[in-house]
């Protein structure tokens, strides 16, 4: 998958309200593999919708999303599963963790799909994020910031070419945000992958090649 092309995509939820000045909706945009994109999106402009379209969780849009020149709308559930195992990863805004399960279990359930990291590697990376002592704690007992860091590590526990960040650092202080950015950069470089970072405000978390406004 060298690139993801948005060809005049207009999601149904923002059909009536999207701005004609948007760089993405209704336009042609190419997300090249290995480049970092910044998507600046005020509330209600369809930031999470964009993440979910890229990750295959929603298909209710006009226009076409092309991956490998194939229409993403036609992918089977199984094709999406394989893409999510090896090509595209996501850090959800709403985290989507298994609340009853511990930090390590939440990370392993992703990692086991491809056995991308060894347990030692997971612990080493957790240490970089400052969540080592949280690994054995159920997620429901963690603060939102702690959960967000578990979610970051979970998203990195697979091979990927695109990493979608949906307000990935919204509950982290500057120090922890920087730790997260450093780890994402480290793993993304190993994968020669790029990030598509969606945020409410313009930021400079990554070395962006292209900035888009929704």
């Amino acid at each position, binding site marked *: 998958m060298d690139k993801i092309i948005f060809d005049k995509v207009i999601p149904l939820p923002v059909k009536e309200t999207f701005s004609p000045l948007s760089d993405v909706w209704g336009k042609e945009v190419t997300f090249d593999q290995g480049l970092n994109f910044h998507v600046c999106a005020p509330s209600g402009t369809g930031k999470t919708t964009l993440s979910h379209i890229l990750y295959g969780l929603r298909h209710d849009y006009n226009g076409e999303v092309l991956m490998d020149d194939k229409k993403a709308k036609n992918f089977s*559930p*199984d094709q999406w*599963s394989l893409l*999510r195992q090896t090509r595209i990863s996501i850090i959800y805004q709403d985290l989507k963790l*298994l609340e009853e399960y511990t930090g390590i279990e939440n990370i392993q*359930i*992703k990692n086991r*799909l491809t056995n991308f990291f060894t347990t030692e590697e997971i612990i080493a990376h957790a240490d970089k994020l400052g969540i080592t002592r949280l690994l054995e704690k159920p997620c429901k007992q963690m603060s939102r910031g702690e959960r967000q860091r578990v979610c970051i590590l979970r998203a990195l526990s697979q091979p990927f070419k695109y990493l979608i960040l949906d307000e990935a650092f919204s509950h982290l202080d500057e120090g922890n945000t920087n730790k997260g950015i450093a780890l994402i950069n480290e793993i993304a470089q190993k994968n020669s992958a790029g990030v598509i970072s969606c945020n409410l405000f313009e930021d400079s978390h990554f070395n962006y090649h292209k900035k888009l406004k929704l």
Partner: protein
Amino acid sequence: MNKLLVKILWGKQSFFQLVLTMIALVIGVSLMAVTINLYLNFKDLLSDNDAFSNNYLVVNKSVGYLNTFGFSSTTFDDDEIADIKGNPLILDAEGFKANQFDVELKTGEPINLRMEIYFESISKKYIDKVPSTWTWKEGEEVVPIIMSTEFYNLMSFGFTPTKKGIPQIPKSLLLNKTFDLYIRGEKGEKRMKTQIVGYSDRINSLIVPQEFLNWANANIGKGKTGTYSRVMLEVEDASSPGLNKYLEENGYVTNKDQLLSGSGKTKIKLFLSVLGLIGGLIVILTLNTLVMNIQLLVSKAKAELKMLFSLGYRLKTLFGYMFYGFLVMQLLPLILIFVLLPLINSGIQSGLNEFMPNFVLETSMEVMLIPVGVFVLSVVVMALFLKRFLRLSVLSD
């Protein structure tokens, strides 16, 4: 195996509910298997192997003084049989042909018994058990006989004990023993051999193949055709009052007890049919319960399933982990049923023996196949519905 995945998919399910489902399966399938087993056992008892089956009746004319002095005949002719066949209560009828020559049987050493006997013949369809060896072609020396069990009992328990030096011989030992046969009639005589090849509970006679009797009557005996000593009737319901009246009006005699027992047997048959129907209903209900359980279990794990799918787990993987859980859930009852069935059957056996001492409850292969059949059916149903419920809950918004 991904233990974490098993924990996530099955951890939330209540153990109690799973056990209840399994118990329901065990009860449902056991009940059905036992019912069908009983049905098969009683069905055998009530129809094919029963001397007093209400589907077959042997009638003859009553013997009066006129017969004794030769003024009237107790035989049936073709017209009378045609008239019997014409009665709507009678499905079919056929006359017994009798021998028109003398028959003498010699047992040979060591018993050395010599006796005058008689032969009768009737189509195979009226005989309850026809051995494959019960055939005869012109030129063959050995004449096969199907002997009435009643006849054997008379000989074995009535006649033999009164004669010194004649041992009682078990039924099975008597089978296929060769005896000397001497037939003599108006047209000639012949020395042959004979064998008892089987026993009949239904027909009180010594029955030989029709081919033999036709040949012997024509070549040894008088060669007269068209008279029959007795007539066998196939009827819908032997206890029907209409049939009774018809037989009475024509002066035909049959065993009255036989007619009386007929109505009781019809009731037992009806009862067993109802039991069989209930068995079938239980299976349908069990399968229905199974489907509802699958739906419940899938909906309980819906959030987890959706999340796992969005993490990149394939539908087939999720299906597999749910499927194997259900498979184990159903294998356990299957094994339990195989342990329970013989126990239940022996319980029924001892219960029945209180008033039917000689009754042996047989468990046929088919009955043991029922749980396996239900298992296969439920696995197929489970796979289909699980796939459907899984897709619905994972792919829905």
